[in-house]
């Protein structure tokens, strides 16, 4: 704690600093967050460039030797259908990351709108709206995702809508808290006195000012969603073959792990590494943007 305070003093004396620069400085000091960030950069690049860097095509089979353990041609081995595991992990990562990011965006939109409206209107409306959130919070919402997946069909679009639709609760609470304090500020009063409509005040003034917590919480939502997607895929309710995701690869691998352990070891380690990195970055961002929150 004291070292941070000291560093903070030095930069302030040297050049004067903005909140953003200060945050970046603190983030750079956080080795775990930097480690997470570089891992994520590698994984994201690999997913974007998958069609170019994948050594084999998605469904190409090499059946002569059956499932192969890692070797020169297949650095992570092949699966029980003779498909290159490294290629499948790359393609699966695209799906897993896409579900993670898109569902987070869905939750962000719902949560931010809901939370900012509740916080801005305040009073009775706020009370009722937040009471509803409290109630949904205490329910087994994974059950609702499962029901949605069963009745709406198991395709990937339903998947991220269903996951996003249950992830917005915490986001809405955070945004409401922000808006409650922001709406008392002078610039909102100024906007009001100039006759700006309520909708514009929320969209143009309140939401942009609550950006910090939004970014932090989104970083922490993505791993949750990725985990939930693999959870559903494990139960046979998520991504459907021949498409693949990390969750599905782990499920397939887990069934044959006594004989072909590499089939579960590689996808599971990559999933765990990604989740770990996202959590490091999320925690790092929180500490960087809100030094007071750094208690432990």
């Amino acid at each position, binding site marked *: 704690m004291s070292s941070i305070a000291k560093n903070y003093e030095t930069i302030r004396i040297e050049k004067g600093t903005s909140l953003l620069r200060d945050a970046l400085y603190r983030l750079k000091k956080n080795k775990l967050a930097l480690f997470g960030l570089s891992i994520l950069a590698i994984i994201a690049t690999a997913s974007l460039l998958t069609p170019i860097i994948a050594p084999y095509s998605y469904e190409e089979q090499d059946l002569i030797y059956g499932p192969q353990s890692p070797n020169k041609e297949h650095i992570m081995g092949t699966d029980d259908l003779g498909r290159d595991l490294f290629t499948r992990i790359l393609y699966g990562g695209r799906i897993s990351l896409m579900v993670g990011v898109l569902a987070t965006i869905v939750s962000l939109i719902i949560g931010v709108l809901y939370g900012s409206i509740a916080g801005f209107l305040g009073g009775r409306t706020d009370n009722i709206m937040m009471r509803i959130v409290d109630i949904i919070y205490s329910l087994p919402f994974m059950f609702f995702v499962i*029901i949605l997946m069963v009745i709406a069909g198991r395709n990937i679009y339903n998947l991220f809508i269903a996951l996003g639709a249950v992830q917005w609760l915490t986001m809405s609470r955070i945004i409401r808290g922000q808006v409650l304090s922001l709406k008392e500020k002078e610039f909102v009063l100024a906007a009001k006195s100039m006759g700006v409509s309520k909708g514009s005040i929320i969209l143009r003034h309140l939401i942009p000012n609550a950006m910090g917590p939004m970014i932090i919480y989104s970083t922490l939502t993505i791993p949750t969603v990725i985990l939930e997607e*693999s959870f559903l895929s494990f139960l046979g309710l998520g991504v459907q073959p021949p498409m693949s995701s990390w969750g599905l690869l782990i499920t397939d691998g887990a069934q044959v792990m006594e004989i072909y352990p590499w089939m579960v070891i590689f996808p599971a380690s990559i999933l765990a590494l990604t989740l770990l990195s996202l959590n490091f970055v999320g925690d790092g961002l929180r500490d960087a943007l809100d030094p007071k929150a750094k208690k432990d």
Partner: protein
Amino acid sequence: MIRYILKRILSTIPVLLIIATITFFIIRIVPGGPFDSEKALPPEILETINKKYHFDEPLYMQYLRYIKDLAHLDLGPSFKYANRSVNEIIMQSFPVSFELGFWALLFASIFGIIAGILSSLRHNSRVDYFFMGLATLGISLPSFVLGPLLVLIFALHFNILPVAGWSSIPHMIMPVITLGAMYTAYIARLTRGGMLEIVNQDFIRTARAKGLKERTIVLRHTLKGGLLPVVTFLGPAFAGIVTGSLVVETIFNVPGLGRYFIQSALNRDYTMVMGTVLFYAVILIFMNLVVDIVYTLLDPRVKYE
């Protein structure tokens, strides 16, 4: 206090009604039902089935019938398991899930709190880093990876625990650890954070100044305040344990309610799905109430009207 509890219990009735209504209509709006099969049933049989389950009535009549039965705590007959009511299936399978969840949460609380206390007492030491590293790993390791991993090591390699099933204590060890691991990690982190926050407070300094033993300070004073975040977390933890048991029961072939729920969702066994959701909603609402009451006991500043 009693008025508060009564009010909370009464307020769950509209909540349950809303859940029942939403699930009922979501499920019924979509085409396809439990009696759709590859081979078309003879029309006479289909007619009998429709009559028996009242599918021939308009939707709102079916809805009113369902709500009326619900008011009598009757969740209706299962569509897929002939001749068995949803109540029967829940009564039979829930005790298994309860046992699994109970031991998992107990395991998580005991080990999580001990690890958290040790970490906070040796703040920023090797012990601290070790436990917190383990906790981060625990949060990042999903149950469907941990479960098979434990099976691989303890059942297949060392051959000391049974692979699956639920008939003796050795059978229970791996499912309980798999389900509890993530919550152990959360509880350890929360305990550590809570303890560190309390350690610097005035009343702890007073306790030290009085010359109390370090042990008494930790157990009687710090722990009581330090555990508050853990108690708050118990509400979401119950929900997580319930959800997590879906996967753990599937991995270890445990005959609990979670596995029945997945089966009935895949089979479109409407009444079973709705019954399970409502049943778990009641359980979770009740658990949250218990958590809130425990909270007032631990923190005298919190009062409910």
